[in-house]
C-alpha cells in the first residue's frame, strides 16, 4: 500500500471527457483528503456525475488520471476500484430492485469483500449489514424489496449499500434529492456520523443541489460549471466567490 500519510485519499487531475461536441469535463482536478467531507457543486449539466463516473471507472476519460491514496488507478476496471474502497450512490437510483433491502446491503458487502462467502467472513458480513441498517434506521424495512420503496427510502438504501462496500472514499450523488426536510436533516446527521473524522470512516465527496446542506457539512468545496472548475475553497470562500455567485448561487437575498 502506498504511503497514505502523504497522498490525499483521492486525487483527480487533468480530467477531460467529451460527448461528441460537448465538453462535459475540461481539464478538471480535485483532491479529497482522508478526513474530508468535500463538496462538489455546480449547475445542472456541469459535469458532476460525469466526474463520478470517471472516478469509479465506468466512464473512460479522454485525458487525465485518478489516484487513490497515491496509487494511479486510472486503468483499473470498475470492480477493482470498488474492491479498493471506492463506493458511490447514484443520482438516478440504481438499487438492486429484485432484492430485499437486507440483501442489497449484504450482496454489496460480498462483492466488495474478498473471500466474502467463506464461513467466518459470512458472520462479519451480517454484522456489518445489521450495523448499517441500524445506523440508517432501516431495520424495519430490511425485508422489503428495494424496488418497492419510495425515493426517500431508496436514497437511504443507496447510502447504506455504499457504506457496506468497505468504503475508503464515498461518492454521494445528490443524496438528498427527493427527501423531505426531516429526512434531509436526518441524512446530514448520519453523514457526519459515518464520515471523515469518525474512526476509520471514509472520505466523502458530496454532490448536492441543496446548498445549505453542502455549506453545512462540507469542509471544502469545488465548483464546476460547463465542465470547468471555476472555484474551490472553504464554504465561506465559495459563498462569496464572484464567479460562483454568478454561475450558480445567485445574489444572496
Amino acid at each position, binding site marked *: 500500500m502506498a504511503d497514505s500519510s502523504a497522498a490525499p485519499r483521492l486525487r483527480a487531475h487533468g480530467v477531460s471527457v467529451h460527448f461528441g461536441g460537448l465538453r462535459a469535463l475540461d481539464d478538471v482536478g480535485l483532491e479529497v483528503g482522508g478526513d474530508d467531507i468535500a463538496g462538489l457543486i455546480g449547475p445542472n449539466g456541469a459535469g458532476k456525475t460525469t466526474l463520478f463516473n470517471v472516478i*469509479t*471507472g*465506468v466512464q473512460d476519460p479522454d485525458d487525465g488520471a485518478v489516484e487513490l491514496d497515491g496509487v494511479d488507478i486510472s486503468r483499473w*476496471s*470498475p*470492480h*477493482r*476500484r*470498488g*474492491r479498493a474502497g*471506492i*463506493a*458511490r450512490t*447514484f443520482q438516478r437510483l*440504481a*438499487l*438492486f*430492485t*429484485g*432484492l430485499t433491502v437486507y*440483501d442489497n446491503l*449484504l*450482496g*454489496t458487502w*460480498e*462483492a*466488495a*469483500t474478498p473471500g*466474502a*462467502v467463506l464461513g467466518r467472513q459470512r458472520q462479519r458480513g451480517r454484522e456489518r449489514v445489521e450495523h448499517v441498517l441500524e445506523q440508517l434506521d432501516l431495520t424495519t424495512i430490511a425485508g422489503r*424489496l428495494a*424496488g*418497492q420503496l419510495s425515493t426517500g427510502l431508496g436514497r437511504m438504501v443507496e447510502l447504506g*449499500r455504499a457504506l457496506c*462496500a468497505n468504503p475508503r472514499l464515498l461518492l454521494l450523488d445528490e443524496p438528498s434529492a427527493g427527501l423531505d426536510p426531516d429526512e434531509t436533516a436526518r441524512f446530514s446527521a448520519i453523514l457526519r456520523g459515518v464520515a471523515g473524522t469518525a474512526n476509520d470512516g471514509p472520505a466523502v465527496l458530496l454532490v448536492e443541489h441543496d446548498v445549505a446542506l453542502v455549506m453545512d457539512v462540507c469542509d471544502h468545496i469545488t465548483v464546476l460549471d460547463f465542465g470547468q472548475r471555476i472555484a474551490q475553497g472553504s464554504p465561506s470562500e465559495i459563498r462569496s466567490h464572484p464567479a460562483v455567485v454568478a454561475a450558480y448561487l445567485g445574489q444572496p437575498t
Partner: protein
Amino acid sequence: MGFFGDIWPLAVIGLFNGAIYGLAAMGVVLTYKTSGIFNFAYGAVAMFCAFTFWQLRDGWGLNQWVALPILVLVVAPLIGLILERLFRPVAALSAEIQIVISLGVLAFLQALALLIWGGSPRVLTSIFSTTAFDFTSKLRLSYTQVFTLFVAAALGAGLWALLRHTRLGVATQAVVDNRDLAELNGISSDTVSRTAWVISTMFAAVVGVLLSGQSRLDVYSLVLVVIFAFAPAVVGRLISLPLAFAGALALGVGQSIVTHWGSSGTLANLYASVPYLALFALLLLYGNRLKELRAAFQPVTSAPAAQPASRRKLLTMGTAGLGLAVVLPALVNEARLGNVTSGVVFASIALTLVVLTGWTGQISLAQFTFVGVGAFTVGHLAATDGSGFFWAAAVGALIAIPIGLLVGLPSLRLSGLYLALATMAFALTVDTMVFSQRRISGGTTGMSIPKPRIFGFSFASTTRFYYLAVAVLAVFAVGALVFQRGPIGRRLQMIRDAPLAASTFGVNLTLTKLAVFALSGAGAAFAGAMFGALRGSVSPGDFGFGASLGLLLLVVLGGRALVGGALIAGFVYMLQILPGLAPYLRYIQLGIAVGVVYVAQYPDGPLTVAADQSRRYADLLRSFRQLVSRPVESKVPEATSG
C-alpha cells in the same frame, strides 16, 4: 482461366441472393433505427407474406400482377401497422423484453401460418420467367435471376433516395439522432416509425416472394434464410442502409463462392453456415464498436419483482410436488407416463435457461446446442446396454463448459440484442457446421442413445426412467434454489437489476457472466443426456435453433425468473405431445405465442401478470370508492373500509 475463371460466375450468381438479403437487411435496419426494435420476426413476416401471395395467386387463381399489388400495397402495410402498434409501448423497455416479444411474434406468425395453410410445403413458382440463357460460356443465367437483381437493386436504391431527398428522410434522420428533440421540433416520431414499419414490411413481402420462388415454401425455412440478412445488418451497425445492402451483396457472393469447394462432402453445409459464422465472428470481433440505440435509457424490467417465496412455502410445494410425482405411475398408463417423462426432462433443460436468462438476464438462443452436446457425447461414450451412461453424461457436461465459455465470450462486450444475436448465430453455426457432421452426430440418420444403467441396475423401463428423470429434475431444482438464495444468486440478481452499480461495488461482470454461461451449459448438457435417453435416438434436427427458440419461449411463458417457471415450461411442452390434444396442437402453439407476448414484461411469469392486473383493478376500485365516499372519507376512514 483456371481458378478465377471458375470463381467469377459463382460470384455473379451470388449477387442475386445477395440482393434479396440486402432488401431484408435494409428492412430490419429501417425499423431498428426508427423505433429501436430489432425485428427477429422479419423472416416470419416474409414467410407469412409469401403464403399470402400463394393464397392469392395459386389458391384463388388471381393474376399474379393483381395479387402482387394486393400483397405489397395492402396486406404488407397492414401487417406493418399492426406490428408498429404492438411494439410502440415496449420501445422504452429493456432489450430483453423487446427480443422476447419479437420472438413471440415470430412464433405467432408460424403458428398462424400452420393453422391457415397446414404443414405441407407449397411450391411457389417464380413470378418471373425461369427460362435460362447463356450469358457467357461459363455463366448460364435465368430471367428470374436477372429480374430479381433488378427489382432488389431498384427497391434498395429507391429507399435510399427516399430517405436522402425527401422530408420523410429528414424527419427519419431527426428521429434517429434524437427522438425527443425531433418531437420538440414538431416531427412526429410515431409517424416516422409507422412509415418505417410499413416500408420494412413491404420489403419483407418482396423478400418472401422472391426467395420462395427459388425453393419450396414452408413455415420454417424462410425464417432461417432471412437470418442470413442479420450479418449484413450488423455490418451497417443496424443504422446504415447502404452498408447493410453492400454487406448483403458481399455475403451473397461469398456464400456462393464457397460452393466451389463445398458442394459435397464435409463442407456441404458450409454454404448454409457462412452467414451464421459471419454473424458470430462479426459480433465477436466488432462488438466493442456496436452500441445499442438508446440502451442507456432502458430500464431492465418494467414489472416490480415479486416477493420471493418463503422457505416454508417452497418446502410445502416441493413436498406436494414430489408426492404427486411418486404416485403418478400408479395413476396413468405407460404411454402417458412417457409423455410426462418428456415434460420432466424438458423442465430440467428449462431450469438451466432460467439460471441464464431469468437470473442473469442473458438471452440465449443456443441452449439446445448444449443439450445436443450432452446427447451426442452419451451416444458416443456409453455402452449400448447403457452402462457408463452417467460417466458419459458427466463428460458431456465437461465438454459443454468450454463451449459455454465460447458462447459467453460475446457477452463480455455485448449485451441485450447483440448477445441474443450472437447466441443465435452460434446455435445456427454449430447446427449447420458441427452437428451435421456424420462423425459427430451420425448425420441425418442420427444416433441411438441407450437408457442408462448403473451397477447393473437398468433404467430401461418407462417407470424407472420416469423416476430417474424426476430425481434429476429434483436435484436440479433444489440445486438451483440453494444457488439462487445464496451469495451467487444474490450476485446474479444484482447484475440483472443494476449491472453498472454491481460492477462499481466490486462485482466482476465478465467472470460472473462467463461462469454462468459455463454452468448453465454444463447443466443443459447433462439434461441433454437424459433427453437423448428419453428419445432413444437423436439426430441434429433435434437440437437446432428452432428447439432453442421453442425452449426460450416456453421458459418466458412459465416465468423466466422462477424455478416454477421451468416446471410450467415442462408442463406446456408435455401438452404439445399428448396425443389426445394433437388436434388442437396448432391452437396450443398459437396460444403459447400470444402468451409469450403478454408475459414478456413479467420475468416472474403469468402469476405476476395476474397479480399486477388485480392490483390495477384494486387501485381502480379504490379510487372509485374514494370518489364516491369523498365527503365522509376524512372523518371515518377506518369505519368505511371495514
